């Protein structure tokens, strides 16, 4: 195959965000087209290079053809969209019913979410699984945060006399769990980013908002305090999580990439900014603007990470995508 055609096909592939089987099929079909088209053009008397150039021109811009192929593979039906919004609705239900402090119900819901996420991650990774994965990773991040006091006490007991630390087995267990969690979070994030950075943004959509909520809970005395002020945020959490659910459904259902990413980023930035404004009461216009910019960067950071991974692979001569 001529270098120009190979370069064209590589560029088409770089703009595709489908599973590898679908991408292979598309590229193979385009290869077949180029073989036939260049053969026909050579029959007309064109040289191999000229025929390749004409065939490429006839095919159109690689980004456009990839975009149209992407749209052709958009998910059909509302089933996948419903599955995508379900984890948000389940968690919203916890806040609507004020049961998020109930250990049995919360454990049941998050075990269900984690189980579905893990199973779907191992079997196929359809687009609807990423919001579920987001909550699973969120649990791990909360677990890491909750482990901090144990590890802090253990470290202090090592460096200072007179400070009694937790048992060695507890520390080892917590440290191992933390290491495993960090590895899993990193592995999943990198896998998702290399597949499609917008899926990583979808996955992390609730993160800033839930983080703000956790901060306000800490300010109100912590999860264990049990005061009425802990429930002040419940209605807002429920509404925003339902909006996240609708956004996830839009992302999974519609084909147009610009619409999906625009909706995701807009909702993520607005919800996060509202949350921060509620947490920090005195936040003025400049504060809101800075918060919005930081959140925009957070939502777009998977795109930055993906381009860095691609650069690094190109430098090492590894085929990207």
């Amino acid at each position, binding site marked *: 195959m001529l270098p120009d055609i190979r370069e064209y096909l590589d560029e088409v592939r770089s703009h595709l965000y489908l599973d590898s089987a679908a991408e292979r099929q598309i590229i193979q079909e385009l290869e*077949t087209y180029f073989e036939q088209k260049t053969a026909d053009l050579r029959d007309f008397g064109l040289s191999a290079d000229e025929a390749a150039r004409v065939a490429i021109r006839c095919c159109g811009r690689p980004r456009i053809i990839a975009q149209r192929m992407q*749209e052709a593979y958009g998910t059909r039906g509302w089933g996948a969209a419903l599955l995508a919004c379900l984890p948000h609705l389940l968690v919203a239900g916890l806040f609507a019913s004020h049961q998020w402090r109930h250990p049995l119900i919360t454990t049941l819901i998050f075990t269900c979410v984690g189980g579905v996420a893990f199973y779907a991650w191992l079997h196929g990774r359809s687009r609807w699984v990423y919001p579920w994965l987001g909550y699973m990773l969120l649990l791990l991040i909360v677990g890491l945060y909750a482990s901090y006091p144990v590890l802090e006490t253990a470290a202090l007991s090592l460096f200072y006399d007179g400070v009694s630390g937790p048992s060695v087995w507890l520390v080892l267990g917590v440290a191992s769990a933390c290491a495993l969690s960090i590895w899993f979070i990193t592995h999943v994030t990198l896998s998702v980013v290399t597949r499609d950075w917008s899926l990583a943004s979808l996955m992390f959509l609730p993160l800033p908002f839930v983080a703000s909520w956790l901060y306000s809970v800490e300010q109100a005395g912590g999860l264990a305090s049990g005061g009425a002020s802990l429930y002040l945020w419940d209605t807002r959490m429920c509404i925003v999580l339902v909006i996240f659910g609708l956004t996830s459904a839009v992302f999974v259902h519609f084909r147009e990439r610009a619409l999906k990413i625009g909706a995701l980023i807009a909702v993520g930035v607005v919800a996060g900014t509202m949350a921060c404004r509620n947490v920090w009461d005195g936040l003025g216009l400049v504060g809101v603007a800075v918060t919005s910019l930081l959140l925009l960067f957070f939502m777009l950071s998977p795109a930055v990470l993906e381009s860095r991974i691609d650069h690094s692979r190109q430098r090492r001569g590894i085929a990207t995508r």
Partner: protein
Amino acid sequence: MKSVNMRKNLARYVPDLVRGNIECLLLFLIKENHETYGYDLMREIEKRSEGYFQLKEGTIYPALHRLENDGLVSGEWRELPGGQLRRYYTITQQGEQALREKMAAWEGFTAAVGLVFRPRPLESDVA
């Protein structure tokens, strides 16, 4: 100025018409040929329309993939004697049903447009 605007409007109008009917054209030709492939479909559409439709590859192949994902056609890779692979498409039962519906819709549409384009009868003719 007026003729330049009309040409510009026509250039926008025709692609919209094509976009709305490309799947119908493809389904019809796939059914008629029993099985065919993308490049051949492109050439046949141009030939049958006497050059009116000069569809780009960026239109045909995504449309074929869309039809396949919707279950209206099914595709199969075949190895040619020279060792190249080619994807052949055949119409499914669902595709035949969809084709019938689209053709009926098109016939209804063109009949209605024809009625609108018919000159209004003179009042003396009516009397």
